[in-house]
């Protein structure tokens, strides 16, 4: 592994000398995400392996290139999981890539997003220096929380070498319900249920059908099922459905239009955007398949206090994420410079102005 990190450092230093750019990559499963990259791919696929896993401490530490599938299989042996259900989007998905992409899956509203589970990291900054932040314990307020800053950073200022994540027991029991409800009514119900002590683990609304996943103690799930109504899906069908949502294999995600990801307050009223819509996260995540101009979609999201990301399709040279206000952009540039003074990491994948 030391040879690999030496190679990474040499690559970064050579890029600094030659004015080139470096694009870190895990398994390449999220290559589609963000703007088109500029520079030489630096693969972390070989920097892999689980370093420590202690089920009773609820922590796992692995090298960035470790496949998510390998980690999840090991956790499953102890009846534990990555509760934020990171989408893989391909068999090669790695832990480092998941953290760099910062994406969470269907259970996000019950358990919190990926960044909440990042306890520590080992990184290589743009100088080629190896740094360690956070650690393997749940509670740690020594120093600034650089580890969580890396969640969603898309390789724009550092290489992620190792990550310690908090893991959780798998819920003892699950059930999935389906009911026919129009959009506005579904949103109202989801928000009202969200304010009650119900074991609501995930939700998906599409085309007049609301699907709910409940996860928790057996008795609590059963009680919630009778309270919420609808019809219950078979366990196999349910797990296939939630997997198709997490991995975007559901029929909704097919078709030629661009896929937009709108993160909005859960209470936002139904959005009027031309196209088809799929709602997750209790109303907080609204996917649109649409060929409407970016300005139309961005302003629909902004009008309700949210933001829009051009997730798949469209022109990779355009802005994909919602542009930052000027004061924020300057701070981003300052932080980028702190980690990467020679600007060797390709930050244009996130924002053209950060490059």
């Amino acid at each position, binding site marked *: 592994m030391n040879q690999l990190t030496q190679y990474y450092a040499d690559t970064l230093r050579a890029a600094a000398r030659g004015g080139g750019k470096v694009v870190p990559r895990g398994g390449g499963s999220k290559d589609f995400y963000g703007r088109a990259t500029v520079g030489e791919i630096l693969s972390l696929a070989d920097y892999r392996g689980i370093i420590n896993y202690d089920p009773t401490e609820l922590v796992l530490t692995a090298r960035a290139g470790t496949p998510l599938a390998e980690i999840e299989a090991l956790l499953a042996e102890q009846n*534990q999981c990555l509760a934020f259900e990171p989408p893989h989007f391909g068999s090669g998905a790695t832990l480092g890539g998941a953290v760099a992409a910062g994406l969470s899956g269907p259970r996000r509203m019950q358990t919190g997003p990926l960044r909440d589970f990042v306890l520590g990291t080992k990184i290589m900054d743009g*100088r080629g220096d190896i740094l360690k932040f956070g650690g393997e314990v749940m509670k740690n307020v020594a120093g600034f929380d650089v580890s969580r800053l890396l969640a969603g950073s898309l390789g724009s200022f550092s290489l992620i070498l190792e990550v310690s994540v908090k893991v959780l027991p798998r819920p003892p029991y699950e059930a999935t319900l389906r009911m026919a409800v129009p959009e506005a009514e579904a949103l109202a119900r989801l928000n009202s249920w969200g304010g009650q*002590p119900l074991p609501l683990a995930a939700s998906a609304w599409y085309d007049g059908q609301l699907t709910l996943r409940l996860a928790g103690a057996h008795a609590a799930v059963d009680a919630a099922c009778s309270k919420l109504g609808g019809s219950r899906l078979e366990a196999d069908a349910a797990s296939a459905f939630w997997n198709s949502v997490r991995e975007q294999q559901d029929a909704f995600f097919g078709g030629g239009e661009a896929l937009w990801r709108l993160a909005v307050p859960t209470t936002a009223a139904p959005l009027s955007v031309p196209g088809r819509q799929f709602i997750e996260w209790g109303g907080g995540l609204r996917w649109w398949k649409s060929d409407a101009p970016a300005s139309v979609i961005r302003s629909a999201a902004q009008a309700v206090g949210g933001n829009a990301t051009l997730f798949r399709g469209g022109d990779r040279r355009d802005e994909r994420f919602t542009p930052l206000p000027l004061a924020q952009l300057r701070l981003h540039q300052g932080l980028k410079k702190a980690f990467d003074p020679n600007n060797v990491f390709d930050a244009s994948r996130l924002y053209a102005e950060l490059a």
Partner: protein
Amino acid sequence: MNDATSVDSAPGIKEPDFSGIDRAALFAELARVLPADCLLIEHEDIKPYECDGLSAYRELPLAVALPREEAQVAAVLKICRKLGVPVVARGAGTGLSAGALPHKFGVILSLARFNRILKVDPAARLAVVQPGVRNLAISEAAAPFGLYYAPDPSSQIACTIGGNVAENSGGVHCLKYGLTVHNLIALRILTIDGELLELGSRAPDTPGFELLALFTGSEGLLGVVTEVTVKLTPKPQLAQCVLAAFDDVVKAGDAVAKIIAAGIIPAGLEMMDQPATAAVEQFVRAGYPLDAKAILLVEADGTPEEVAEEIAAVRKVLDGAGATEIRVSRDENERLKFWAGRKAAFPAAGRISPDYYCMDGTIPRRRLGEMLEAITQMEHKYGLRCINVFHAGDGNLHPLILFDANKPGELERTEEFGAEILELSVRLGGTITGEHGVGFEKINSMCVQFASPELTMFHRVKQAFDPAGLLNPGKAVPTLHRCAEFGRMHVHHGQLPHPDLPRF
């Protein structure tokens, strides 16, 4: 990088010298933007601000600003930026790491008057509050809607949400419900330039870097919080608590691991050692078994069905783990009584000893036995007693060292005792602070936990927010000079960092 193509000089090597500040200019400028009742400069007025909850460290500031409006906060910051004056934000001053300790040549910026709850939105399950609002007041305002703010530091009747954000505070329920960082939705902050920034948003994701998480726990070094949007959680229908006694602390520690291994994440999971139970029992009569070497408190919450299921599972594990006695609270009164002892641990320490010093290291739980054994040896070494309360679920240990500040040398011995516990926490794979922050108190211990490349990076991050280093200088992140003087610099890859720096 030696062949760096751009200028990359490292900040944070030496502490800047602020002694040349022009006081007259500062007072005049502050008086121009603040009404008379919002600016204190007389000795007797500023004296109450000389320390926070850790009163061993005291310092008088040049002035205390108590603004009422966000625009006044911005104006104060701009003045300090222009004149190069340090600014120390302050909430309720309950901090335990001297984070709000004044700077001798600086201004205390108190947010105490920002005490309004701006909105409770039950449908969106959030509250928008000013930074000086007390932690408990948020839960009280949310209670009519069946909601509450989950993080519950023991100081919750007094501490402010702004202080909680700055420290990333925890409570006895954070194993299941998270720390402050897990319960924040958005922040409004002012930079040292008086510029307003919104971090986070009401949408579940915010574009750009994770600045909300970076800012949380930054101890007033990156900006001043002027508004906080917090997540509200539905109040569980029922909570029940199990009290278990053990004839051996290691057995109690193993029981905790077994509960987690059984797939249970209790709402609360606390441990107290025998001296701690004895101390609180004199004080609150919680009915704790005094012959036990350690007791555990395990709380389950949720629907009645859920609680019954979890309590049964917990009981089974505790039985198997060799508990000598198991009691389950029969009603809310009894549950509160079980907790009363744990929550009174700090005041009880203050009762049985003239002074006490609370440590805050976190360790991997499996190392608990080693840690407690080492603490016992340190009690002999330093000739001081120590009682231990432990957020066992997440490994956060609060040894309370008992001492008498009036006896010459005791405070110094206590500090050394504390520092040794923290060094051991790092060696056991943990950290020097789980929830109280580094502040001024643990600034030297940071040299043990981090090597100079990490410390330098912290200074660079601060520089991106606060280029002149005016926000809470001398706290949280030590300069490399300080670490060299302290002499216990972390040795990185077998090499002394910055060999060019003089060592004292």
